[in-house]
């Protein structure tokens, strides 16, 4: 770490952010207390669906310490929360976009829908006063399950059948014809279980208004502060952007759930001017369960047609995706653009049709959660592939090999062009690492103990760094998908880098510093990374979709290269050489073919003390910024192999081995990459084995609304992962050759686990079962097969 020169890329450099987190010096939003701080509590609907007959705030207003009470009436003329992606239905009509009000007006649409906000001097006073808000509800029938017939009272009048859109991709008639004549057809009907993100830091916000210049500052637990500012200022509150500063300080995990613009922080910013006091709100965990955007929740019928050799001919998928009660920021794109486009997986399947119906229900909004559409797609593909193999009696690894894409670039039938990949390499390594050769002996050993052992594969592909902006725009995106970076070189040659990416666990302060120090040939200690503050960072789209290094890192690299280019001109002047003769290497500007050279720090000093300087041709200073809009997605891929042991008497599943071999292209910090895979695997195994967001079908109450009811993976629920990153195929279209690693584990692992479980239970006649594979669900599947 103290090495003075380049060579940081590829090293497991320890994280510089850790010291503050390990000593209690991190600063999360709830840690901030302003002078004159007040506290907000939201009054929330206890009903899933109801008319608001009366919201009487008189007693609350009169309560001790109360400084303000607001209801939906106060926001009738304020915009609703916008949705960032327009999906167009197959009939050419735009998706239904009912208003998503900041505070409910006329109706509440899910348990936890916010009805009023009470602001008081202390949190205890705000809570006490909130209990005095008198709300009369006329309860309506709740509709929570997209698999069920539409409810008798629509969630929104604008969508009488509760459909937001019916979207499709592919030539259905041609694919139906292929299915009609195929040698083999496999069909699966299942539900991709609803998940609740549960970052351990609950959402939090603290808004302060400054009357002297009519400006606002919002601290908020958020993954993309510039997007938050843009949406809140321009689309909801009508505040000029330069009058709203959004700071996302240390953020305790996001996993997608902190991408979105939520009502609470927007209400806080608006109300901070009304009461002219800083207002803080921190979600209780119960509120987080009820109001954080949830993930997944698909009901799917998936079919694969194959020829007699197990060569895939066509895939047909029908999905009803639960969107919840309102369209969250990117809700519409997750089960469509980010789902259907991944259905080719690693295979040459020539024909794919996918129809998605987006369904409004009386549940919390559903949006991107780690993987966002891609775990759902991988589950479709890899469950089908494994089941085709089993039904046709073909080895699951062999059927994958028969169908692998082997030449690149490869244009899939679902709109993506994979730039590079080598799926055989990680499959072969995974087979070896998982000791698949020794599986039969282990299966026998389990059988000797009365237990069933199964082996399952999942060969995933994902698309990271959603891009480019113009194509995304043509597909309905209402935002750009670039990233911005700035490299500020100080007169002494020290560097501060500003990035629009946001780190909430990913370790950007370390990884990005490695990249910059490496490229500039300076010590890592000379580079600081600043993120998460619209008052400091010029612009940014933030962190989601495993995009930070491939998109944000590339923007920084482009800015560094501009610094080097300008440095060469300064060096050429000082060394009395032509610009074109200057080379930059190991932190020194050199005249090619000579021993004349100047260190980076001296060029920096000259830029700020321009006494001997080409002022007629060059501005002083050394400070560059860059925007980078990728030309394509990046395509990480991998092979995951899971081995489970099942007790057929109890349905208890033990994950005995989990092997993950990934190709992330080039790797900057292998320690951090491995940690990202671990975390993704934990969430994917959590989905497959434990987690389930469940609403009561009649009342619409969230039954899994606390850590007592929602099974979060704990240390002793998870296996020891065997993780490896192969020397892979670098991305061909970004200068770092990186692909992104944040979501892979969550994308690839659920299918591997369920495939292993179905392998274990195949001899009992269990071909499929729904996630989570709780002992009860597994036991039921075994009993059902026996019956």
């Amino acid at each position, binding site marked *: 770490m103290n090495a003075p020169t380049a060579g940081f890329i590829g090293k497991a450099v320890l994280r510089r952010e850790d010291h503050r987190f390990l000593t209690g010096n991190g600063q*999360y939003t*709830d840690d901030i207390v302003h002078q004159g701080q007040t506290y907000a509590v939201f009054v929330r609907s206890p009903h899933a669906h109801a008319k608001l007959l009366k919201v009487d705030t008189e007693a609350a207003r009169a309560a001790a310490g109360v400084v303000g009470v607001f209801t939906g009436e106060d926001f009738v003329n304020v915009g609703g929360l916008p949705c960032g992606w327009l999906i167009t239905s197959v009939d050419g009509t735009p998706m239904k976009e009912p208003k998503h009000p900041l505070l409910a007006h006329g109706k509440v649409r899910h348990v936890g829908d916010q009805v009023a906000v009470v602001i008081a001097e202390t949190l205890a006073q705000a809570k006490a006063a909130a209990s005095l808000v008198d709300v009369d509800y006329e309860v309506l029938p709740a509709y929570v399950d997209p698999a069920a017939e539409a409810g008798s009272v629509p969630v929104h009048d604008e969508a009488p059948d509760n459909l937001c859109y019916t979207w499709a991709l592919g030539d259905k008639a041609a694919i139906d014809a292929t299915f009609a004549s195929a040698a083999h057809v496999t069909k699966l009907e299942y539900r991709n279980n609803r998940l609740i993100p549960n*970052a351990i830091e609950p959402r939090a916000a603290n808004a302060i208004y400054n009357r002297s210049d009519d400006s606002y500052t919002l601290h908020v637990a958020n993954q993309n502060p510039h997007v938050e500012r843009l949406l809140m200022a321009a689309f909801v509150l009508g505040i000029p952007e330069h009058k709203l500063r959004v700071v996302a300080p240390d953020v305790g995990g996001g996993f997608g759930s902190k991408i979105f613009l939520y009502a609470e922080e927007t209400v806080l910013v608006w109300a901070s001017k009304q009461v002219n006091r800083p207002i803080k709100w921190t979600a209780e*965990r119960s509120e987080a369960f009820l109001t954080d955007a949830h993930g997944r929740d698909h009901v799917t019928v998936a079919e694969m047609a194959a020829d007699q050799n197990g060569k895939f001919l066509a895939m047909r998928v029908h999905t009803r995706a639960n969107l919840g009660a309102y369209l969250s920021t990117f809700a519409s794109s997750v089960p469509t653009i980010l789902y259907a486009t991944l259905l080719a997986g690693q295979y040459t399947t020539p024909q794919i049709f996918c129809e998605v119906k987006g369904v409004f229900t009386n549940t919390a909004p559903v949006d991107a959660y780690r993987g966002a559409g891609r775990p759902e797609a991988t589950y479709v593909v890899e469950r089908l592939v494994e089941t085709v193999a089993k039904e046709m009696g073909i080895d699951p690894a062999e059927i994958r090999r028969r169908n692998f894409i082997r030449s690149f670039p490869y244009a899939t039938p679902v709109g993506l062009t994979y730039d590079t990949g080598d799926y055989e390499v990680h499959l072969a390594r995974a087979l070896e690492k998982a000791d698949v050769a020794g599986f039969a002996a282990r299966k026998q050993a389990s059988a000797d103990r009365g237990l069933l052992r199964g082996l399952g594969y999942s060969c995933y592909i994902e698309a990271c760094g959603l891009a480019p902006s113009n194509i995304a725009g043509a597909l309905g995106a209402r935002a750009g998908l670039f990233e911005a970076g700035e490299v500020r070189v100080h007169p002494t040659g020290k560097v501060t880098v500003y990035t629009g990416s946001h780190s909430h666990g990913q370790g950007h302060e370390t990884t990005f510093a490695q990249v910059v120090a490496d490229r500039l040939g300076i010590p890592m200690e000379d580079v600081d990374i600043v993120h998460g503050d619209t008052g400091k960072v010029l612009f940014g789209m933030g962190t989601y979709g495993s995009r930070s290094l491939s998109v944000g890192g590339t923007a920084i690299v482009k800015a560094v290269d501009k610094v080097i280019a300008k440095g060469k001109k300064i060096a050429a002047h000082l060394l009395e050489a032509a610009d074109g003769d200057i080379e930059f290497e190991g932190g020194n500007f050199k005249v090619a073919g000579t021993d004349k050279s100047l260190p980076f720090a001296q060029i920096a000093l000259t830029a700020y003390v321009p006494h001997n300087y080409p002022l007629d041709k060059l501005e002083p200073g050394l400070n560059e910024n860059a925007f980078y809009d990728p030309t394509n997605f990046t395509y990480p891929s991998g092979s995951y192999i899971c081995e489970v042991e099942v007790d057929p008497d109890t349905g208890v599943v033990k994950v005995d081995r989990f092997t993950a071999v990934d190709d992330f292209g080039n790797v900057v910090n292998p320690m951090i990459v491995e*940690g990202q895979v671990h*975390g993704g695997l934990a969430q994917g195994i959590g989905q497959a084995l434990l987690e389930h967001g469940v609403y009561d079908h009649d009342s619409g109450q969230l039954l899994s609304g606390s*850590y007592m009811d929602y099974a979060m*993976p*704990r240390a*002793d629920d998870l296996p020891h992962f065997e993780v490896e990153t192969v020397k892979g195929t670098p991305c061909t279209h970004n200068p770092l050759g990186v692909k992104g690693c944040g979501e892979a584990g969550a994308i690839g692992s659920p299918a591997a686990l369920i495939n292993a479980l179905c392998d274990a239970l195949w001899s009992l006649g269990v071909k499929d079962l729904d996630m989570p594979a709780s002992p009860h669900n597994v036991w039921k599947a075994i009993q059902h097969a026996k019956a």
Partner: protein
Amino acid sequence: MSISITVHLNGKTVSAQVQASTSLVEFLREHQRLTGTHVGCDTAQCGACTVLVDGKAMKSCNMLAVQADGLSITTIEGLAAADGSLHPMQSAFRDCHGLQCGFCTPGMVMSALDLVTHHDHSSEQKIREHLEGNLCRCTGYQNIVRAVQQGAQAMAQSA
């Protein structure tokens, strides 16, 4: 009604007036401004608020400040040496990449200290079982387990 308490907090004697209803975590975060101890749930399940009370791990959301009267409390802020050098368990978490977002980390470190001081930590399985009361959403626990093993070893050597 406010009640007077005296606690030995991170090696210092602190006297304060608290309400009967003030939780220990509220006392630490809001009164003492020791914000390293975090709140991640409302059912004493996540363990982010774990501190040491007389050397034993305690979820500080689950204890009233008045119950701490006369007791010794150690929070994450009390572990590093006066010169800023890290406690061996803190170092182990850093060396093993046992943290990502950092939010569960203080509670996790305090639970780890309780484990290696008072309980059987001879196997990975034992460590995993002991950490049941602390949720981490980022790491998948594997590097936390490694950190506890390494931290335990370092503490044994320096003892």
